[in-house]
């Protein structure tokens, strides 16, 4: 199941996000890394240092593009200039597939630069799926959509989040980037069982997984990406890879970023869970050694 039509039939292993504080280390030490994820928007520029670094990385590594501004759930028309620039980058990186979020973030041409939660309605699912298809047609690469963490829910919702995710990906015929940490965060913020979520999505459409750390506050959990992955998330991850198969996985660490080695070490913990599924080992035994 790991290599499927939603991830361009790739089985990449464990990746980490390409972040500025690590540029020097990566370019000089050339560490062994399965793949790097880039934030597309950081490289959708005309010229300069970002593209120079990207080209050097591309000489050595597989790069997968992850976006934060397609806003599949918005009701605006797609920005053609944005798509054109994104396609130029797709050609440059030769990313076998591309991911962005199941959210909205702009309205009437004004951008919030946030990943805002969707109202889980059929109209929203239909609109979102149409936009995913439009982007796939234009970019000519498979797309996987990522579930976001959220802190608010709309009265108007007509279904659960996982039903909405399923409705969108089946209508669009696209894949899922399953962010296990986001499910955990949202489950705490909205009082649902995260395993019910994991059990009730189309597992065959999962093309990649994300894991990350979060921060607990008195009344809610915030998706901060500034910690190692916490135990409940590893546990859910183990369950997810049992359901979906050993899927290529990325560790997100976007704030208070430690050394490259520390981030890479944390990411490589996921390998034990992937191998356990391959070897049919018990998750609890893996947790004890992770």
């Amino acid at each position, binding site marked *: 199941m790991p290599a499927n039509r939603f991830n361009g039939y790739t089985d990449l292993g464990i990746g980490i996000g390409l972040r500025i504080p690590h540029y020097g280390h990566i370019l000089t030490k050339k560490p062994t890394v399965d793949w790097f994820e880039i934030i597309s928007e950081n490289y959708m520029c005309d010229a*300069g240092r970002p593209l120079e670094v990207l080209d050097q990385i591309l000489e050595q590594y597989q790069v997968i593009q992850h976006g934060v501004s397609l806003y599949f759930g918005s009701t605006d028309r797609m920005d053609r200039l944005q798509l054109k620039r994104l396609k130029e980058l797709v050609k440059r990186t030769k990313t076998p597939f591309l991911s962005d979020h199941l959210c909205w973030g702009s309205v009437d041409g004004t951008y919030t630069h*946030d990943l805002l939660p969707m109202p889980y*309605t059929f*109209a929203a699912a239909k609109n979102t799926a149409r936009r995913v298809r439009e982007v796939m047609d234009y970019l000519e690469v498979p797309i996987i959509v990522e579930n976001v963490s959220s802190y608010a829910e709309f009265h108007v919702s007509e279904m659960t989040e996982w039903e909405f995710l399923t409705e969108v990906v089946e209508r669009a015929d696209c894949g899922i980037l399953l962010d296990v940490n986001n499910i955990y965060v949202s489950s705490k913020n909205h009082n649902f069982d995260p395993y019910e979520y994991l059990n009730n999505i189309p597992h065959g459409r999962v093309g990649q997984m994300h894991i990350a750390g979060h921060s607990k506050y008195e009344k809610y959990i915030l998706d901060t990406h500034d910690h190692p992955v916490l135990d409940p998330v590893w546990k859910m991850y183990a369950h997810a890879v049992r359901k979906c198969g050993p899927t290529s996985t990325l560790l997100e660490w976007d704030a208070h970023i430690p050394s490259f080695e520390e981030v890479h070490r944390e990411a490589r913990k996921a390998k034990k869970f992937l191998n356990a599924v391959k070897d049919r080992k018990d998750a609890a035994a893996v947790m004890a050694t992770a």
Partner: protein
Amino acid sequence: MTNGKTRQTLGELRELQRLTGAVIMRPLSRQWRMRRKWIDDRDMRIVAGEFIKPNDRLSSFERIEIYNKQYWFRLIDSFYGDFPGLRAVLGRLKFNRLTCAYLTEHPSRSYTMRNLGRNLPQFIAKHPELAAPRFDLALEMARFEWAQVEAFDGPARPALTVDDLLGKDPAKLHLAIQPHISVLKLKYPLDDYAIRLKKSGLRGEASNAIEEDAPEKPGRKRRVLIPRPKQTFVVVHRHDNSLYYKRIEEEGYRLLNSLSKGATLVEAIKSAFKGDPDPGLVREWFETWTELGWFCKP
């Protein structure tokens, strides 16, 4: 159908996103909280309750407030990343106030945050009270720092070499300046000031992380004295993909300015110098500028 209600239409989805967007992008109170009253003077708790579900720990107001705060914290943080010198000039509170006023009038219209500050110099010029009593310095700093954003990753066209210019008739030769380069006439020596700020550690790395607290409070950083006025001519450019500020002479500024406005080389040199130009000096400038890749075909 769900709960006996009719399903949401696409038009209703758009209206819901308009309302949510308006709530999220509305300026915060002085205490960095969501405002208590909506634009029509209704209690914001009632307005939020109409479209956001509460849970067992947070009211509808508190839940949407998380997004309202995140919006402003993220954008102010991004702005600080692009305009650290402006914040040093104005101080944290005035900088935050200016940023909020600016983004209220000029919310982002682009998928990238890179362009957020494009209209800031014009905005400061229009609202001098927001930068008082350092209006002049703030305006100049905004121009200088926006030029750096442009130079960092703006477009570059094939650079002309010295060989490209050899044998050309200067009376007919037109040269364009690279689109990512800004040739600035400043009232303050902001190039020196920016370097002192960087050395003092006042410029922090921008972060996209979600922050729970209000935009960064000042830590223990060495204070850098505000510069005294001194007319300065600076070219903000990049070379080998690194950002540089190059100080130039007033005549050099006039020359480059004329060229960028479409003058021929002879016309530009004539307009740059009050008397007869020193041919050796002009040649030296052109050799340096060409080597730095500043010129391209118009």
